[in-house]
């Protein structure tokens, strides 16, 4: 996990989220969703804080954070890239798209580029199967992706960054 010191504002925010859910342990997943939306990710310190506020052991919080793919303990890049590995995209060659993106960025799945601009993840089906294979960058969907064009697509975001 990342070393980070939480700011007073972040601590207050987490406390507020927990209170909005009545500090109810049954609301843990909703609390984590909101916390991740606010802070971007869920480092160890945040998990400890959530555990304290909801009055549950931190291992239960970490058990939930590590169980669900949606929660992340590492910060994402400025432009998170997701490659769809749903079946429809897979049979239309999304594995080759993934290989090319890894090659272009020089990182593996779950990693962030050293400059913090891009992070790479896989997801299962965005539901745009008619456009397979599909990748998303910062939420924008790119359909019918040809590995040959990937460098150009990524460079267009680099320029922006």
């Amino acid at each position, binding site marked *: 996990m990342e070393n980070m010191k939480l700011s007073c504002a972040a601590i207050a925010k987490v406390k507020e989220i927990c209170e909005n859910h009545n500090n109810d342990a*049954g609301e843990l*997943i909703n609390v984590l969703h909101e916390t991740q939306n606010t802070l971007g990710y869920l480092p160890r310190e945040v998990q400890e804080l959530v555990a304290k506020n909801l009055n549950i052991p931190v291992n239960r919080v970490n058990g939930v954070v590590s169980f669900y793919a949606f929660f992340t303990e590492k910060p994402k890049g400025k432009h998170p890239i997701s490659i769809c590995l749903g*079946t429809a995209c*897979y049979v239309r060659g999304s594995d080759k798209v993934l290989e090319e993106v890894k090659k272009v960025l020089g990182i593996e799945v779950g990693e962030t580029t050293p400059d913090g601009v891009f992070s790479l993840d896989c997801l299962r089906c*965005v539901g745009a199967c008619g456009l*397979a294979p*599909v990748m998303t960058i910062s939420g924008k969907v790119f359909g019918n992706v040809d590995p040959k064009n990937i460098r150009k697509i990524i460079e267009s975001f680099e320029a922006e960054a």
Partner: protein
Amino acid sequence: MKIKSLQDLEKIKTENATRLELRNEDTLDTGGETCGLEKGTEHIQVLTCGGTGCKASESEAIAKKMQECLEQFGVADKVEIITTGCFGFCEKGPIVKVMPDNTFYTKVKPEDAVEIIKEHVIGGRRVQRLLYVDPETGSSVSDSRHMNFYRKQVRIALRNCGLIDPENIDEYIARNGYSALADCLLHKTPAEVIDVVKRSGLRGRGGAGFPTGNKWEFASKSKSDIKYVVCNADEGDPGAFMDRSIMEGDPNSIIEAMAICGYAIGAQYGLIYVRAEYPLAIHRLQTAISQAHELGLLGEDILGTGFNFDITIRYGAGAFVCGEETALIHSMEGKRGEPTLKPPFPAVEGYKKYPTNVNNVETWANIPVIFQNGPEWFASIGTEKSKGTKVFALAGKINNVGLIEVPMGTTLREVIYEIGGGIKDGKKFKAVQTGGPSGGCLTEKHLDIHIDYESLGAAGSMMGSGGMIVMDEDNCMVQVARFYLGFIVEESCGKCAPCRIGNKRMLEILDKIVAGKGTVEDLDKLEELAQVIKDASLCGLGQTSPNPVLSTLANFRDEYMEHVVEKKCRAKQCMSMLNYTINSKNCVGCHLCAKNCPVDAIVGELRQPHTIDYQKCIKCGTCMNNCRLHAISLK
């Protein structure tokens, strides 16, 4: 305004009837060349698809440009732009439909928006280049009823998708919405409601196909002051998107059905467990819930009957196993989504230990219409044991990718070749995968199977949630099995050893086969392990997890044998078994390949055919990409 009686509901229906009548394909006169305002039509509606797929192709920008154009030409009072849910024909999206001309425009781009308004709506001429072209006849088809994609479909669960504005509850009411709830609350006892669902023969659309009426009956018999109704919207099967489309296109049908169930089983609370990855579906559900509240169709004393019912949304966080109902319940309780043994069934002990009835989105969407048209009508559609229709997400190497709904009993051949328009790029059909990661791959010999729960199960696959992925000769079946197993290994919750460790071992064996190091004994080992996982796993996910391997082993054993004996991959996908070769007849010795080879593996004199040194070659493919004469191929 709160709806207090059947009359109030009827009033909203009548007020909106004309608007909806414009979109009723069955009563429209679409003959004649002239269209748009030229024809004398006083009110025109332009429907644009607001589903996730079409939105990704800028359907919002199209709607915005059309609106601007209407205002510019001063016809905004006569023409209305309406954003609907998914039309289903995703391959041809974004789709724009002009009513009452019943003109179906495909692959519309934002720059086409002005032309549709100028030419069609104002000028009275259809924009020919945006019409669908029938690949068989080569002629264009302007309305969806005459497209092969729609001709065989019967849309029950999808009845309102692509037809109504999902963010306007009045349009849902105009399509008889909430009349079933009113009928149940005012004229039926809870037992009678359950009886109707039982007589309809409806079975769960989420996978296993358990009779819905029986499920409701179990929950109704549990004695408790507090009970819950849950909508399972954790659509995790990669490649299936029907639940998302229903939530995005017709959210009120789910809300109405859940309220009916609440009345039938004696529950006051509804929960929708939806994937956090579906922001649009969540937004539409929230809108529908708050509109239903405003009209008094949710909340306290619904329709003055004293029945209270409320719905809240719970978010999933990305775990396939949460589609299993006990796991889903644990996840809603803020815990890891691990399944537990049944019994106790959720109908006895579910959410927070209270009796809970869980149904899937598509199942819910069928409920209101069963009450509107009667259970006998529903039971008259389909096969002996599987009633009604099923929605399938048709995808992969097929011409018409999209969301389709067909009566149970339709054959796979009809779905793939008539509705789906056959295999892409004229390639050869190889397999169709149904049932997602728990299902199996079926082949040519299964194409005439009449699709229902039993027949798919007997063929070694399953109905599942309705993913249908078509594969052609370029797909390696060993790799397909490995793909599904990779998914299972990632998604296994880890609670029981057979699933957690067994699938991992199976994946290692498949990795070994793909790497060209497999043996015949490995195939036996795969089968043995698969059997143990099937027998000994705790939940449905584990018990069905070896299906993709078992069905490919059964139906494509020769392909596995080629991999392990001859070290050959006929689909040319397993790189370990392939080499780049230079055809000396085509090679002119231009040296371009050698110049670009990163490891200097290509040798040869200038203007003489070159050769590849396989000791050095890393199979990167740069040579093939650089050869202008197509002299290099993968064999």
